[in-house]
């Protein structure tokens, strides 16, 4: 059995369980409504969910730009300058250690309860891991490469864009993956905590009144976002594969490329 087949079987199995377990009464509908009733609930309120999805996607998109873009850039800068790294990194990771979720209700005082506070929260939530992962990845770069670039007169920004980031690509990509996923989590969770729009809001509102099919219709949308995000990352990974030569990731990517080119496109 190919890996893809097995994976699909697992997914199909999970979907089947989702339908059958509640129907058989093995799990109360309150905890897991059957997939069909979830879909029906979502379909009946399609307009409401569509609007919520738009709000959430908007927040996710902006937070993603801040968290991933800013995280990679600052991580690369801080990671490649020894002095700031020694000084700043411990403080940044300590800062991240402050459980922000708890203080979130208080932050809304200054950020309002609209999209701004979600974006701020999710950006911070996704930014720090991205930055930390990138900075850590930078440290695994062969110093000889930086020396070579310096000898050719590369400015700091050129070193960043042309050497540091490409050399740290495997770690940067994982930073992107973690950061991006956390942005989605951050937006949804902050919407669940405090808000009047978005998927998270619908989830927690329906949860409060024990309307589980509608709760899970929201969860389904979150899952859909996660799938889309994973597809996007895969695409980026494939694009970046060529940069990863000389590492394990590169080996895998190269194999992937050669197997896909060898197989007839069906």
């Amino acid at each position: 059995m190919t890996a893809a087949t097995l994976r699909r079987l697992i997914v199909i199995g999970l979907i089947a369980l989702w339908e059958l377990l509640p129907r058989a009464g093995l799990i109360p509908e309150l905890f897991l409504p059957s997939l069909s009733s979830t879909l029906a609930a979502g379909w009946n309120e399609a307009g409401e969910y569509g609007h919520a999805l738009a709000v959430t996607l908007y927040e996710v998109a902006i937070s993603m730009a801040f968290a991933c873009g800013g995280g990679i850039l600052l991580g690369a800068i801080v990671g490649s300058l020894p002095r700031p790294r020694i000084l700043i990194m411990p403080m940044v990771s300590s800062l991240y250690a402050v459980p922000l979720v708890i203080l979130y209700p208080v932050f809304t005082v200054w950020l309002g309860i609209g999209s701004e506070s979600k974006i701020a929260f999710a950006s911070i939530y996704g930014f720090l891991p991205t930055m930390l992962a990138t900075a850590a990845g930078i440290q695994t770069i062969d110093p000889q490469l930086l020396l070579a670039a310096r000898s050719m007169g590369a400015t700091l920004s050129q070193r960043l864009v042309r050497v540091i980031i490409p050399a740290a690509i495997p770690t940067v990509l994982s930073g992107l993956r973690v950061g991006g996923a956390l942005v989605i989590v951050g937006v949804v969770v902050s919407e669940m905590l405090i808000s009047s729009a978005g998927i998270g809001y619908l989830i927690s509102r329906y949860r409060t009144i024990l309307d589980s099919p509608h709760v899970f219709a929201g969860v389904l949308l979150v899952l859909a976002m996660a799938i889309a995000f994973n597809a996007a990352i895969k695409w980026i990974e494939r694009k970046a594969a060529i940069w990863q030569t000389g590492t394990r990731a590169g080996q895998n990517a190269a194999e992937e490329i050669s197997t896909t080119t060898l197989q007839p496109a069906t």
Partner: protein
Amino acid sequence: ADTVRIGLPTKTYWPTTIAETAVRQKLFEKEGIAAELTIYRGGAETFEAMAAGAADVILDATSLVSAGRKKGVNSKVLASAATGYYGWQLMTLSKSTLGVKDLAGKKVAITSAGSGSDLLALWTQQDKKIEFTRVPVGGGGLVPNLLAGNVDAAVVYSPLSFQISKSGEARTILDFSKEVPPNLAAGWIALDKYVQDKPQMVQKTLNALYGALMFMRANKDASVKLITELYEIPAEIAALEYENTILKLETDGSMDGAKIPEQLQLALDMAKAGGMKDLGPAAEIISTQFKPVPTKP
């Protein structure tokens, strides 16, 4: 001794005070049982915990019982606990001159959509025939957002309401305990299965809980002291909480009363107005099997 697991929706809420009193006065022991108290994030979470089998007897909104039946969770209200929203108030900043009527088109903070505070906000809109925006800010966000001016008013629970009223930061523009017509908002609840398996446990639990209420009514000083300690609030606020909520609670608890179906139906109707769907008739969720016999300390 057999242990009953009691689920409570938040810490600083009168059911917790009652259950704590029962523990401290050893009322469960006197009934020959043990009790384990668990505090949850809110009403829905408490109900879920009971449905999951993690709690045996809970205090919760009666509407959830009705909603739960449609989701495969069969439980009933065993004893009536409160017929009003004691201590719940609609508040503005002290310096604000807004009255209830002036809230039209303004922003009012609630804890979360579908919660008790949302219910009261919706009721206010209907009753006062005004429209305002309900802003869910979470329990922890109510006062901060009010103080910061992000909202014009907030639906505040007790004893928080007493606290910020006393501190002079906010003032009450509507007292829900007085304005909302009596309805059976909260009761002690258990799964049908638990009632069936362990009716004795249920009876003893209710005895101890109502015994605790009786003890509190009879011992103001001790009760105020307990509230002060549990809630970490000044004694004077604790006294307000005692006067305005504890003393207002149902002392009988019996679900036999003539007014019960009507009061329960009223509670369900309010919940429906708040967005709940699929609620069955009140009769479906009433259990008259138990009559609490307050345990003597």
